[in-house]
């Protein structure tokens, strides 16, 4: 199966689930939770870097999903929609915590030369400590991308930035993580 057809199949599966939820089928909500609870937990947990905060955010995410799914217009975009909600819940949480969140200056980098990242991609979980020390923007983009649930375009949709900016953030995040690992002697 090619990537395109696999992606098309996933999109139809997502839409099928979303449409059934919009109809009000309880079984569809159960399937939605069974399918997406874990990936959302991994994203939220890694960005918050705290169990308790992640639990609260994830509960908030599910409430927003249940109440908001009737307004999802394109069911095939279920997964960026879900992660978009998770992201907004995380941002709201951060805003509550820091009344005036510090703006993170973002610069664009060229990712074309950055192809030696397979080690980073293999097991993000094993680098949890290094990941937790990254700024939120970098932690978020790495987590979203390496969850392997979203394409680059979908990550861009979730973050509300162009795909090029996602690439530049990934580049910077990986550089920062690598520097951190080198400094502390952890294997990359």
């Amino acid at each position: 199966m090619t990537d395109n057809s696999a992606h098309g199949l996933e999109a139809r599966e997502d839409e099928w689930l979303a449409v059934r939820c919009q109809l009000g089928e309880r079984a569809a909500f159960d399937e939605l939770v069974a399918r997406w609870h874990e990936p959302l937990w991994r994203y939220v947990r890694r960005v918050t870097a705290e169990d308790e905060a992640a639990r609260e955010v994830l509960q908030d995410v599910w409430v927003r999903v249940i109440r908001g799914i009737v307004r999802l217009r394109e069911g095939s975009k279920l997964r960026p929609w879900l992660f978009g909600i998770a992201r907004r819940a995380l941002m709201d949480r951060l805003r509550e915590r820091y009344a005036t969140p510090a703006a993170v200056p973002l610069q664009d980098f060229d990712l074309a030369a950055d192809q030696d990242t397979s080690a980073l991609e293999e097991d993000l979980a094993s680098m949890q400590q290094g990941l937790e020390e990254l700024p939120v923007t970098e932690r978020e983009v790495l987590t979203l991308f390496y969850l392997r649930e979203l394409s680059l375009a979908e990550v861009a949709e979730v973050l509300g930035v162009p795909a090029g900016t996602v690439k530049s953030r990934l580049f910077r995040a990986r550089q920062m993580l690598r520097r951190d690992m080198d400094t502390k002697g952890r294997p990359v």
Partner: protein
Amino acid sequence: MNQTNPAHPGGSPTLPDVQRLLDAELSLRSRLGYVALLLGSLGMAALAGALWLTEPALPFRTQVAFALMIVIGLSWTVFSVWVLRHRRVLYARQHIVAGRMAVAFTSVFVVSALAIGYGSGKDGAYAAAALGGVMLIGAVLMLLRGHRAFNRLAERRDGLARELGRST
């Protein structure tokens, strides 16, 4: 949210926790309760308004009482609409149930107001029946819209099920 998921010793919220959340959030009884509240409060405001407008030379205190009834009725109406839009949203099937409830309620309202008007000859009852008629038209339109939305989604669901080889 205090149980621990064995898959996550640190602990993601457990699936039973989320299931409980689903049970609470998807409760049909609470939704239909707010639909009933919406219809009842709207009916009360319509009745009080009709009587106030058609009864000549009402004492000041009676007028104040009608005004208060209208304000209270409309406040509950606004509140229940807000709840149904933000906290207990109606899914496509439930839109149809709510639409049927609205048609049944407004039909009873119109028939009752007409019967009272016929029996007592009071203009207020006919005015209430006229307002009820407007509400009935709104309820029928809401029901038709609900059916259209449901059919569109059900058709899409069935089409996707065929493509994916799933049963519906």
